[in-house]
């Protein structure tokens, strides 16, 4: 028996892969030589805090080998029955037709043939495609690499991603504090140290960091929150669900209804204003527009003082608790943790969520944001970390094979037409459409105000859809429209390329089997997205770059994405162009390595042999806490490279129009002064689908669908049966793995529903079958069921409005955006009813 132990990295942590006789038999957290770790130490309150020399994976990563060999793996190229590119296509049968196995030759023939035909007939821009938000880890293979280079080479119509996880921060917070290069998220540098030294209370608002883990950071921060709890830092949680962090931290739980966050925030501001317990000096020096804000809070403009009593009516939190929260917050050094990266959270994906996100910043501004112990911090990032040694994260230009310095010949796509992910189905089904902004508006505030129209003048409508992944039915909104889109005759040709059979796979004409990152060569730094979340690897106790080894040969007939696109390119006569002169994936890996700082520290052979390189924090370490520079009125000293004012004469400013925190947003005042849905001063605006809506009479339950704990944006779910043994993920009943919906006992009893009953969640947009999890962890009137089911399992395949029993609760959510100029999705404003399912 031969055994190899190889290194690799996943979306949530670096691993060791044990291979015996060509089969992966074990996955473990990466083990590194003790001497390679140089743990940092934080001194606080006479104690020394230092992390153990280990890596902590997200739980589902331990199930990686199960996913690798899953029965759901796409094994062979498939062609949809009834699809004949030379004859009839039967687009309306997508989602119903069966599939037949074909050879790679035939698959490549069809795909390249269709690409050629469509380019000749309509032009390259008649092709569009996109990936899911997250791919398997590794920069050679990441979605922004091979897929992007290939598509740009075809001159396709790119699709803007919407900032799906943090909409309100992107479209709202940016107009309060800038940080557009972080898409509205704040810097998080050295906030762990700051909290350990100075913080007395942490308010988690729409945040479950124990479950969301700064997206990529695995579980390193579990220890940090324990340190804080051990030193008696008080945790208060505002969430309709008593979440996992709240449970672990023994937090005081203030449950509130969705859509009420801005109101509660206003009542807190009201308490501070009327009791004179806010930082007047900071407000006067570091902010703009407080007077108008104050007037609104006191009700001088609309006759409605934003008292705790008023907010209690909106939110369900008793007035006395709101008032006390305000008093505690003001009397203590308080961190506001309003999302896993400082900002994010389900509350940012609701109607008018810009207003809640802006209020979060303004509340902390009233308490001196940047003052020791007073931060906006997710509790998941900002440990001591080296920021001078660079290695490209997946979103950095330098890790994308289409535009990296590692490419001898970058590829530039001249196509100006764009689509927007959120409205892609509408664009196909019912053009023309238009929208504001460019998805991830990381270049400037004003990029949000660019108006786009599809089709663009002089450009064709799209005819071909190349989809990598299959997540949207459970991650976008009003998702039955994706079914209708796929069935549109407008889409002459649809390809799906993926490792596993997922929600959208069964709508393609040709299915191409891709292999996972364990079946190809790659490299990456753990948790380093780069791009608009630069230095995100400070969510890990140790930075580590991993040589991701090819552990086994691609299973069945699967191929790496890169090899698939290379093969198609060859058919198109563009192989040399696509492969940048014949680079293999290993060549790319070496090229990315070469342009990083790694060669200064370790040569390729050693890195390749050892499998990893740990980049330790500097010793001695000089902390630069986030926004401390701003609080102290001096130039930015945090290593935030994309902050354009840093290092200039304006270094002490934020990147709002005024350079200050804006209670009255100058960018909104200038561009949309009369917008009542996102006014210059944030307002609490009644949700268009909430507690006070007319629709509530028909659908009196509010659905909350945050990001799941035991899977990763559809990754790992469905294909990894061990997760079905965890009741918090899925519950087995009668041989089926049901997605849970958490229901309060009073709501269940009123409907004759018992624990483990199968129930139908429904409204006018759709219906989903879930398994009832009766719990006191939700407010009455709330149903909590995670988004991101990987299993779309319609009872009537092919029918867009079919009941789904896989748990894709996003089918129930609305297409309506945050507000008319803020094109973010709002799945969190969703009214439903539930009933026991009788078959």
């Amino acid at each position, binding site marked *: 028996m031969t055994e190899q132990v190889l290194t690799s990295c996943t979306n949530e942590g670096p691993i060791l892969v044990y291979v015996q006789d060509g089969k992966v*038999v*074990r*996955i*473990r*957290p990466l083990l590194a030589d003790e001497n390679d770790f140089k743990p940092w130490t934080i001194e606080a309150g006479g104690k020394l805090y230092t992390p*153990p020399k280990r890596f*902590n*994976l997200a*739980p*589902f990563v*331990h*199930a990686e*080998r*199960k996913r690798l060999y899953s029965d759901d793996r796409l094994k062979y190229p498939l062609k949809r029955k009834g699809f004949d590119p030379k004859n009839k296509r039967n687009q309306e049968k997508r989602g119903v037709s069966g599939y037949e196995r074909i050879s790679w030759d035939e698959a490549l023939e069809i795909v390249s043939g269709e690409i050629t035909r469509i380019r000749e007939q309509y032009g390259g821009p008649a092709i569009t495609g996109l990936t899911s938000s997250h791919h398997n880890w590794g920069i050679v293979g990441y979605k922004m690499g091979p897929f992007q280079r290939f598509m740009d080479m075809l001159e396709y119509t790119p699709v803007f991603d919407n900032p799906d996880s943090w909409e309100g921060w992107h479209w709202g917070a940016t107009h309060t504090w800038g940080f557009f290069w972080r898409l509205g998220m704040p810097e998080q540098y050295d906030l762990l140290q700051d909290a350990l030294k100075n913080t007395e209370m942490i308010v988690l608002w729409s945040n479950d960091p*124990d479950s969301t883990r700064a997206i990529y950071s*695995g*579980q*390193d921060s*579990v*220890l940090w929150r*324990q340190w804080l709890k051990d030193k008696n830092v008080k945790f208060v949680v505002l969430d309709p669900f*008593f979440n*996992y962090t709240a*449970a*672990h931290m*023994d937090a*005081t*739980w*203030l*449950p509130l209804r969705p859509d009420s966050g801005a109101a509660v925030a206003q009542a807190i501001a009201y308490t501070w204003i009327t009791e004179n317990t806010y930082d007047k000096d900071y407000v006067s020096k570091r902010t703009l527009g407080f007077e108008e804000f104050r007037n609104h809070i006191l009700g001088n403009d609309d006759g409605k003082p934003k008292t*705790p*009593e008023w907010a209690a009516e909106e939110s369900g939190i008793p*007035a*006395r*608790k709101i*008032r*006390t*929260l305000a*008093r*505690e917050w003001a009397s203590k050094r308080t961190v506001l943790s309003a999302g896993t990266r400082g900002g994010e959270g389900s509350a940012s994906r609701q109607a008018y969520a810009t207003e809640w996100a802006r209020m979060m910043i303004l509340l902390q501004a009233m308490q001196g944001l940047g003052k020791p112990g007073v931060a906006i911090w997710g509790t998941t990032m900002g440990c001591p970390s080296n920021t001078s040694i660079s290695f490209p994260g997946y979103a950095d230009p330098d890790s994308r094979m289409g535009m990296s310095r590692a490419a001898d010949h970058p590829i530039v796509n001249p196509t100006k037409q764009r689509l927007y992910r959120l409205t892609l189905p509408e664009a196909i089904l019912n053009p023309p459409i238009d929208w504001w902004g460019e998805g991830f508006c990381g270049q400037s505030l004003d990029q949000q105000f660019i108006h786009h129209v599809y089709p663009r003048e002089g450009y064709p409508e799209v005819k071909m859809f190349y989809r990598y992944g299959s997540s949207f039915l459970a991650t976008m909104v009003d998702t039955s429209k994706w079914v209708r889109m796929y069935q549109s005759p407008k889409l002459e040709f649809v390809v799906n390329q993926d490792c596993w059979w997922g929600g959208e796979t069964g709508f393609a004409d040709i299915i191409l089997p891709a292999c996972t990152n364990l079946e190809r060569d790659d490299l990456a730094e753990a948790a380093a997205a780069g791009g608009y979340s630069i230095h995100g690897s400070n969510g890990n106790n140790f930075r580590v770059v991993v040589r991701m080894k090819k552990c086994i040969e691609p299973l069945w007939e699967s191929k790496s994405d890169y090899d698939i696109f290379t093969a198609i390119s060859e058919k198109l006569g563009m192989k040399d162009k696509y492969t940048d002169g014949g680079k293999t994936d290993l060549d790319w890996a070496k090229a990315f390595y070469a342009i990083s700082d790694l060669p200064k520290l370790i040569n390729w052979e050693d890195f390749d042999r050892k499998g990893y390189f740990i980049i330790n924090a500097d010793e001695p370490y000089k902390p630069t806490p986030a926004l401390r520079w701003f609080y102290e009125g001096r130039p930015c000293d945090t290593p935030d490279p994309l902050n354009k004012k840093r290092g200039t004469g304006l270094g002490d400013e934020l990147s709002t129009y005024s350079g200050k925190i804006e209670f009255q947003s100058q960018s909104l005042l200038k561009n949309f002064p009369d917008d009542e849905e996102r006014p210059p001063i944030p307002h609490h605006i009644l949700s268009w689908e909430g507690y006070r809506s007319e629709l509530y009479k028909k659908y009196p339950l509010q659905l909350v669908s945050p990001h799941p704990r*035991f899977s990763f944006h559809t990754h790992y779910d469905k294909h990894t*049966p*061990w*997760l079905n*043994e*965890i*009741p*918090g993920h899925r519950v087995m009943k009668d041989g089926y793995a049901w997605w849970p919906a958490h229901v*309060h006992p009073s709501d269940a009893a009123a409907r004759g529903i018992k624990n483990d009953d199968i129930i139908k969640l429904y409204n006018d947009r759709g219906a989903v079958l879930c398994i009832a999890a009766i*719990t*006191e*962890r*939700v*407010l*009455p009137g709330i149903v909590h069921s995670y988004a991101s089911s990987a299993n779309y399992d319609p009872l009537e395949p092919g029918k867009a409005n079919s009941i789904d029993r896989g748990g894709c609760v996003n089918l129930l959510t609305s297409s309506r955006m945050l507000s008319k100029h803020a094109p973010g999705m709002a799945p969190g404003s969703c009214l439903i009813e539930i009933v026991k399912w009788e078959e």
Partner: protein
Amino acid sequence: MPRYGMLINIDRCNGCYACYLACRDEFESNDHLPYSAAQPAEGRSWMRVTEKERGSTPKVRVDYVATPCLHCANAPCVDKSVDGAVYRRPDGIVLIDPEKSKGNRNILSDCPHRLIYWNEEKNIPQKCTFCAHLLDMGWKEPRCVEACPAGAVVFGDLDDPASGISKLIASSKTEELNPDFGLNPNVRYVDLPKRFILGEVVLGDKKGDCAPGIRVQLGDGAETIECRTDSFGDFEFDGLKPSRKYTLRVVHKGYATVEKPVVTNSDVNVGVIELDPLG
């Protein structure tokens, strides 16, 4: 010769199930003979995690109790075993021989904690082995311990006073699961969930504010313990015994004292106790 044991801290545990899944990874479809045959694909981990939710909205407590095999010093499964089907190693690890135990379903009921599982495919009883095969190869801890991000599961030599686990045991209040079973387990716990009585106090004439610092007393007839409401007016008595009759008493100058009988048949959330002003 070490004597292996584990200490599991329920307060530390964040309920992530990494221990559960690491055990699955080690054993599902992987034989580690002679100590263990593979866990079945349709089966479960040998590190059982049980979620315990208690209380009522908005005062809820959620704990996770992880139970591997407890590798008891007085193990009924060993004592009742025929032909050495269940045996104990010199280091205290209790193992079920996959050959000798074939077909013997009775072994399951020998464990009062029900920590032995039936493998239908292979027709054998199975349970946690403390990853004996890995320890033999020089690993320092079982998979579940390695996977835990919270340091909630600690493993080591109970007979070595310098070991991490021994030092922890010396400085902690350790408990057994079901001490009345008399099993003398080598897996012990810290902060197992106990009964609580909690609630909130509100002053009847000041309902717009929370009521901090109010004295709340709990008496069981023999002794009385006391606490004060926190800034949110909440109070909690924890570590109580089950099925006890208590009297809860809230005393505040200028207000009528409130007395309430409470029985801990389950954990109790008394809700909001409103104090009426005197006069």
